[in-house]
């Protein structure tokens, strides 16, 4: 699976239940290295104790 991008894409599409033609699988597999690079960069970040959030709070103005 790791060595054949088309097989990776084929399995991911099947897992998600999205039918793709061989032509579209081939096209999508050419995008895979770009996504893998993004995934690798995100994996490299030191997240510490950070937890996901969807809420923001005001930021008090800092003293001058």
């Amino acid at each position, binding site marked *: 699976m790791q060595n054949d991008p088309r097989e990776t894409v084929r399995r991911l*599409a099947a897992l*998600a239940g*999205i039918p793709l033609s061989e032509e579209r699988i081939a096209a999508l597999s050419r995008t895979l290295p770009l996504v893998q690079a993004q*995934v690798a960069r995100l994996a490299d970040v030191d997240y*510490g104790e*950070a937890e996901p959030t*969807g809420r923001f709070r*005001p*930021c008090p103005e800092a003293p*001058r």
Partner: protein
Amino acid sequence: MTPAEVTHLSIAEAADLIHRKKLSPVELTEACLQRIGSLDAHLRAFITVTRQEALATAQQAVSAIAGGNYRGPLHGIPLALKDLFDTAGVRTTAGSRITADRVPEEDAEATARLKAAGAVLLGKLNMHEFAYGVTGVNPHYGATFNPWDPTHISGGSSSGSGAAVAAGMALGALGTDTGGSVRIPSSLCGITGLKPTYGRVSRRGVVPLSWALDHVGPMARSAADAALILKAIAGHDPGDETSSEEPVPDYAKMLEDSRLKSLRVGVPREYFFDNVDAEVLAAVRGAISVLEELGAQVSEVSLPHIAEAPDAVNAIMLPEALAYHHRWLAERPQDYGEDIRRRLETGLLYPAVSYVQAQRLRSLIVEEWREKVFDGVDLLAAPTTPVAAPSLEEADLEATLTLVRFTNPFNLVGVPAVSIPCGFTSGGLPIGLQLVGRWFDEGTVLRAAHAYQQATDWHKRAPPGT
């Protein structure tokens, strides 16, 4: 006053005339409808024009104001909505074939608030299909052309909003911004567009692209006009889980203080000035100098994790968009335009772990910017886009990646960001300056934008032939 002059009034100017009964909302609405009739075949800003409803609302405004029931600065003002805001009884296509015949039963919260403020809604504006792109090239309803040069794109995804406001077809509009879709068309069309803080404006009844990143915002010809629209639509909505309970200030009143003497403006040291077109760079540097002349203290600032922010945006937006469209993509993929279909399919490639890491990165950036960026500056200043409007022939994936580069980090961080006109290229295309503030501090963002617009006239220029 000629119809062309009337449609290029600011909202504040038109409101003053309406309030003093020197201008009729019906006359103003008819002037906008006339411009739509004469220009829209060339620009394709509208998908649906609600002529009869608009004239009826304008007539109601006349009667109400005559009876002493003036509702405020949007009463009788013709505005328009990106065609993903639900409108009761009026089809809401989201720029798609898939929902081409969808007629909502209820208004979106933002639609309802504009109606409550007495605004006259002219119709539904063209957009990039399902808001999933920033060129405004729509395979189902046609590309929206840039009013400054119709051989160039208007930008998107709020393409019709940008073109309609720039061309004087509406005095203001609503757009949505998931990676830059308010600010990019505002920059490319030479108008003012604000992405407020995440949670500031309700998203209920707005067709989603990415729940975590979607923002609703005003698009107008000045910061003062954007402030009036924002005031009307902002505020808590218990029907939107992400809606904030932060109180909404009187933005228009905050603009009265045009002094920038104590304002600290940070210019990003990295990322935002890399690979920028020379004319854009010169215009933005010039605009920052104007802010300095107005009294702002300008300094350089570093933004932690800025390089990873676009990766996080992709790792959130693509899976969320795929999740929303999953059933349609499985059952009727042929009904999507090819660019959207390809983007949705790309969402298959992101693992769940990256989605969660991206959400954690969001928290990390917010905390670090809170402590290390906004402890020393009140605003950030940067180009809105690295280039002016690409030509229609250039409107491809590469153009998309270029256009979102400076806007999508702020969707992740959730801070308010405005784009204002700050110059033109030698080819006559507008250039945008982006000002970014603290969470829920739209007032300072708009105040700085307004002060800049009091000192310059870029925002007063109208496209040729309009």
